[in-house]
């Protein structure tokens, strides 16, 4: 197929050296018009750096970039935009208290003599939304939009100027399966118009769905490029990880114990009459669309938000949890979905993060025993194989997988009986995912009751004993036999 198509982007022998780090080591990339190229690789493989070069945030130390056969230098983001390169970064860059229209035209407002022409912008924005077949009022404030809608605004923003090449960095990370389907429809339309798309995602299912070819990077090096029909899921993982991978979901099934946590008729603004039980040694999966109330439910159990009514029992005894402090004291731990925003104090050391909920365990009269803290943390570093140069490493400098392990260490030191993990592998690369799954197995074997909230259906099916499906704040189904269910069955419960 590429033979008949025109080459849009050609990157040759790209190197990037930062002080002390050789981040990109000779990468070649070809992108044809009307093609979706998936860029794959674990965290730290160099994908982001590569994209930032296209966006003008970084310049290559070595190598050439050609756009439509013409060599270009992208000195800054403005040049990138003028060349017709649109980039949608992983983190949204929308300003919450500006309207959709104002956000779309923030960089290049339509104006006459310095006065913004609102009507012109409004008309243009509506046209763009029509073109991709989605209706969003351009005059609505961005903070009122759902995550999926914000994602669409980002796309429209990128398309508002003449775009020939669109880069999307994990656009689906916060989207539900349904919304991802909508996104793919847009991407297929863009292909029709001859726009070249570079698509980055950790979700392999999506890659096989949308991409034409795959380029795999590892540790800043170019590993290879394959047509999507010529590669299997297994092969792709192996190219990324650099070794043989036996099993994506290494679930251990074993005997489930007595009930530990019983939730009865719990109610709040976002959660309606939810009841369920978790047993010792059980992994109870929670899935559903974004906004189904899963995270909100977990926050109620953990005391982070106030519940309106309902009871929570631990070992048959009713709990009166008013704050996370109470929940922790009773042996409940929560690993939040937003690890950076809520799970860690990024600017502090991993040791301090580990210590935060556990200070009382190694202090006397309020005075911390620093060496005891180090000793205890060292045990977890050892047993969980946390990769850090030293305990004073700042949390922000860790990879997603290691960050997740540090958060887990916090709750293991507390000896929590109930561990709630919200999106255990979000933003974590393939190799580290496997380790996180193994840790979940170990915890279950030790008899912990585990609640695992996840939007990734293969993960929920692959790692749970039972699965609870939520829909608009309610439980729509409890699947007793997770081993023999399918994504279609779960989706069906989640949607209807």
């Amino acid at each position, binding site marked *: 197929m590429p033979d008949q198509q025109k080459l849009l982007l050609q990157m040759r022998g790209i190197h990037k050296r930062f002080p002390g780090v050789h981040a990109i080591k000779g990468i070649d990339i070809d992108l044809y018009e009307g093609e979706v190229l998936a860029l794959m690789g674990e965290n730290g493989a160099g994908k982001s750096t590569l994209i930032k070069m296209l966006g003008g945030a970084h310049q290559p130390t070595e190598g050439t970039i050609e756009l439509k056969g013409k060599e270009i230098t992208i000195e800054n983001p403005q040049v990138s935009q003028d060349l017709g390169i649109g980039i949608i970064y992983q983190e949204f860059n929308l300003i919450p208290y500006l309207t959709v229209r104002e956000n779309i035209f923030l960089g290049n407002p339509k104006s006459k003599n310095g006065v913004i022409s609102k009507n012109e912008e409004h008309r243009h924005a509506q046209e763009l939304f029509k073109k991709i077949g989605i209706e969003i009022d351009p005059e609505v404030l961005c903070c009122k939009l759902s995550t999926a809608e914000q994602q669409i605004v980002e796309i429209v923003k990128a398309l508002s100027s003449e775009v020939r090449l669109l880069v999307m960095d994990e656009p689906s990370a916060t989207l539900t399966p349904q919304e991802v389907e909508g996104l793919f429809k847009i991407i297929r339309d863009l292909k029709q118009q001859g726009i070249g798309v570079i698509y980055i995602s950790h979700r392999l299912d999506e890659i096989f769905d949308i991409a034409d070819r795959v380029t795999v990077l590892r540790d800043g090096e170019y590993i290879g490029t394959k047509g999507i029909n010529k590669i299997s899921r297994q092969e792709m993982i192996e190219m990324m990880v650099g070794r043989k991978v036996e099993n994506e979901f290494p679930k251990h099934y074993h005997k489930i114990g007595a009930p530990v946590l019983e939730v009865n008729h719990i109610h709040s603004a976002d959660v309606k009459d939810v009841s369920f039980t978790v047993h010792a040694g059980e992994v109870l999966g929670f899935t559903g669309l974004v906004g189904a109330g899963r995270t909100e439910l977990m926050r109620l159990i*953990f005391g*982070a938000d106030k519940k309106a009514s309902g009871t929570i029992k631990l070992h048959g005894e009713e709990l009166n949890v008013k*704050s*996370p*402090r109470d*929940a*922790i*004291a009773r042996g409940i731990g*929560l690993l*939040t979905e937003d690890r950076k*925003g*809520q*799970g*860690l*104090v*990024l*600017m*502090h050391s991993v040791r*301090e993060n580990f*210590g*935060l*909920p556990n*200070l*009382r365990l190694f*202090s006397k009269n*309020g*005075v*911390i025993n*620093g060496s005891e803290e180090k000793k205890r943390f060292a045990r977890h570093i050892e047993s969980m194989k946390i990769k850090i140069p030293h305990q004073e490493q700042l949390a922000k400098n860790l990879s997603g997988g290691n960050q997740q392990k540090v958060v887990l260490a*916090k709750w293991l030191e507390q000896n929590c009986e109930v561990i709630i993990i919200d999106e255990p592998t979000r933003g974590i690369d393939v190799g580290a995912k496997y380790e996180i799954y193994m840790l979940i197995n170990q915890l279950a074997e030790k008899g912990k009751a585990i609640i695992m909230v996840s939007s990734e259906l293969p993960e929920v099916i692959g790692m749970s004993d039972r699965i609870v499906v939520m829909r608009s704040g309610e439980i729509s189904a409890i699947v007793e036999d997770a081993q023999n269910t399918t994504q279609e069955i779960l989706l069906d419960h989640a949607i209807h």
Partner: protein
Amino acid sequence: MRQKLSSLFSDYGMVLVLALLFVVFSLTTLKEQTAEGYGAGQQLAEKALNSGATELVLVVGTSSEDRLVKEGLEESLQGKGVRVHLIAIIEPPKAKKALQELASTVPVNTLIACSKKTGNWTFYNRVDHFKDSEVLIPKNETVSSFLKASNLKTLPDKTAKTAIIAIGMTMIIITAGIDLSVGSLVALATVVSTMTLQIVFGNSSSPVLIGLSFLAGISAAGFCGFINGTLSTFFRIPPFIVTLAMMLIARGLALNLTGNRTIKVGLPDISWLGQMPNPIILMILLYGLAYFVMHKTIFGRQIYAIGGNAEAARLSGVPVKRLLISVYTISGIVAGIAGIVMASELNSGSGEFGQTWELNVIAAVVVGGTSLMGGQGKIIGTLIGCTIIEVINNGMNLMAISSNTQQIVLGCVILAAIIVDKIKKK
């Protein structure tokens, strides 16, 4: 060892700045001191003060030059509690006689100060009564007025009060908050403590009652801090606004209580706390305590966590609201302590005290390397920051730089401190 040194510099790079400032001011305030005229008198006075004398005999001639020496000495010693016995005679024998006559009225070996001319006379130590007297003779010499002991001694005195307040401010800024009310709380504490002593305890000189009135001043300020903390946590009002309001309320209250007058405490008893080196000792004790609390206790660790990420801290079981209230209360209490030090120093209380101190204190904390974004900062850095600002003020005063220009320089110093901090983080 080397690693320790380098980490000391990266943590407290401000120490280097401070050292540099000492060198700069030592050099820029170098002055030629003459052995004649008014300057000679000043020089003698300085030396006399350094020797700790309470009485001295000044022997000068009758020339106009020597009269200037006398004026310089007397004016420099004014109010310093040194008695001067003057002998102004041109002929040595008569002068010797006058000295012998003085023997009956001054203590043995009283210090003798001369002008350049009378310094050539040799009979002083031959008079029995002055056999071992020290004889001061003015000399031509180059001295740095910054490095003079008399100047250096005033430095910590001025630093102590702002440094004490800065302890609370550092804690608050580490939680990503701010406290604009501290200057007003200083005034309130001086007023409440002096009025309590006067009105409630009838100007008693009992140390217990003085202590209680001090406690009343500290409690008043601490209570205001408690209100700051409570309002900003329970109603989620930004601390900037709450403490701005408290700044106005406390100042107005202090002025109203006194009816715009200064409350003078007649008895000298309360001046004990304000006398050197007591404020310094108090400051050092408080810094020691604050260092321990911030770096070794659960309380301190949790305060850093709140500033770093309040939500993550709450989800880790940190009682965020309770801690924030404590921190604002502590800030009120230390402002109150600075207030009673001030009341003691000046033997008075007034609603006018402590104006704009909050700004100096915030500046010192920032210069000391604490991030206004919260989560990062060091208590010792703040102490260094306070010293830096005081040294700059003092040095500029000695260089006779106008107060307008001093403000410009201080503004630039604050900006420089923040820029350096930003660069360091990159």
